[in-house]
């Protein structure tokens, strides 16, 4: 083939590719990227649907200044960060254990795997309702079991206690999302060459040494992927807490997404709400960049 025809073939391939990509790209630009830019624009303006006569004047960074001096904003940021840290740590730890159990062959493994997928498939709203039922106070099953076992003398009213209200929230999140982590890690485990373990055994390495020197290092990429997905997901937590505690008692379990939602749709302060949304987005973006860079370094290191 001459160079000319080769070039024209490559060009026609590229033309076809853009044609195939175009519909998806157009949709994403118009309903995801454009609204995101609109949020940024909105955040620089005063826009209060309760006071339409004030119009939509440009007010610079005033909305951001308000957010950064707003105690409820910092409180909600703190809640979300703590929730993310605690739940993701537990989920990755438990998920690893779960993946190891699912990795071995034994009778009934298919059943265990199907069962594990149940919480994953369930709507978050339903999971929240189920956990709300179990922690219902003072008469739910958790209180009944804990008082019967003598762990507590009195039934605890979980949802009116600012710290205890976090227990059902974290447990429900761990219950719902650990399976997803386990599935990702299991796929990672399955890519590890079994002959490595054989060689290690011949060299006299025990199970614990094999785990530390083969499983953990080779699982790192899968671990990072699970970490990215879970952190970004936990950071935008909304449904679970909306149904489980409503952010209460008071605002004791209010995450940042719920606060921004209230600002926009209860107080109708779209400008301020947009500033909060941009701040939430920036944190997600920073986290994603951080992880992707770590993953990139990982890729080069392994390959």
């Amino acid at each position, binding site marked *: 083939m001459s160079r000319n025809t080769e070039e024209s073939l*490559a060009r026609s*391939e*590229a033309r*076809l590719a*853009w044609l*195939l*990509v175009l519909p*998806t790209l157009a*949709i994403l630009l118009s*309903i*995801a*990227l454009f*609204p*995101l830019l*609109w949020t940024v624009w909105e955040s620089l303006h005063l826009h209060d649907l309760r006071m339409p006569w004030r119009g939509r004047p440009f007010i610079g960074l005033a909305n951001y200044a308000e957010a950064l001096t707003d105690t409820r904003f910092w409180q909600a940021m703190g809640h979300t960060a703590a929730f993310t840290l605690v739940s993701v740590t537990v989920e990755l730890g438990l998920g690893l254990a*779960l993946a190891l*159990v699912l990795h071995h*062959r*034994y009778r*009934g493994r298919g059943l265990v*795997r*199907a*069962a*594990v*997928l*149940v*919480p994953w*498939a*369930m*709507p*978050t*709203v*339903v999971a929240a*309702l*189920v956990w709300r*039922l*179990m922690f*219902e106070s003072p*008469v739910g099953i958790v209180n*009944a079991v804990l008082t019967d076992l003598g762990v507590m003398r009195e039934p605890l009213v979980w949802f009116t206690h600012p710290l205890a209200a976090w227990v059902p929230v974290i447990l429900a999140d761990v*219950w719902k999302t650990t399976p997803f982590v386990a*599935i*990702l890690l*299991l*796929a990672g485990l399955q890519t590890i060459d079994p002959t490595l373990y054989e060689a290690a055994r011949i060299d006299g390495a025990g199970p614990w040494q094999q785990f530390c020197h083969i499983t953990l290092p080779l699982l790192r990429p*899968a671990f990072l992927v699970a970490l990215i*997905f879970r952190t*970004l997901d936990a950071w*935008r937590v*909304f*449904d679970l807490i*909306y149904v489980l505690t409503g952010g209460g008692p008071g605002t004791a379990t209010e995450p940042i*997404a719920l606060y921004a*939602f209230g600002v*926009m749709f209860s107080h109708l302060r*779209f400008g301020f709400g947009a500033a909060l*949304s941009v701040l*939430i*987005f920036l944190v*997600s973006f920073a986290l994603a960049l951080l992880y992707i860079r770590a993953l990139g370094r990982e890729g080069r290191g392994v390959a």
Partner: protein
Amino acid sequence: MTNPGQRWVLVSAGVLLVTWVLFPVYWALIASFTPEAHLFAAPSLLPPACILDHYRALFSERAFWVPIRNSLIVAGTTTLLCVPLGTLCAYAIARLHFRGQGALLGVILATTMFPQISLVSPLYLLLRALRLINTYPGVILPYLTFAMPLTVWLLVGFLRQLPRELEEAAMVDGASRLRTVWEIVLPLALPGIATTAILTFVYCWNEFLFALTFTLGPERHTVPVALALFRGQYQVPWGQILAGAMVATAPLFLIVLFLQRRIVQGLTAGAVEK
């Protein structure tokens, strides 16, 4: 490979896991059949009396088929829009060569990481301007923001696993690119496309924030919104809420039971195979 002691540990860990995973579901299922008066009296593993009243009330008093219909329409339409367009886009990314390929996949992946709350206010204003608040398109359009990137991401993963040889052979035989896609790639990719469709449907069926924001009344609420906003006159109607929760989850149980292998493949195709 595994000795008896090890197997014993594994099996008991498995039993423990299944209990931890299934107990809350079992508990809710029992509660949905328990008369309201017994619901919180002396918890026992078997219901003291078994009734269907909550399910009956759910459909007669609450008209729960309305949110079910809404969810089916919204999730179904979103899936039908996303899968064909997503397949075209994914094929281009997985198989063709063009400048900006990597960046494009990066942008698509990045949109899946957008916090939904960052899009809610402009989408609300946009849909209001288009008079689409509280309509089906008013929910479907926002759903495309997460469903499109999801389908593309999953399908790129699936398509990259297909062998190239058949396609190349067809093209050497003089078939055009599009005919090759239609006659060779599509039939091979069908299982992956079906799995993608199912996962997309499940994500849409479960979505809450957009449906909550862009619908106003029970006539347009989807299943999760209807469940979250269930209120009784004097007290929480737990029996009916849980009956509704079980109805909302039953189709997902069936999907998991019959398609677990496929689902696992789908969830991991994009993420690990790199």
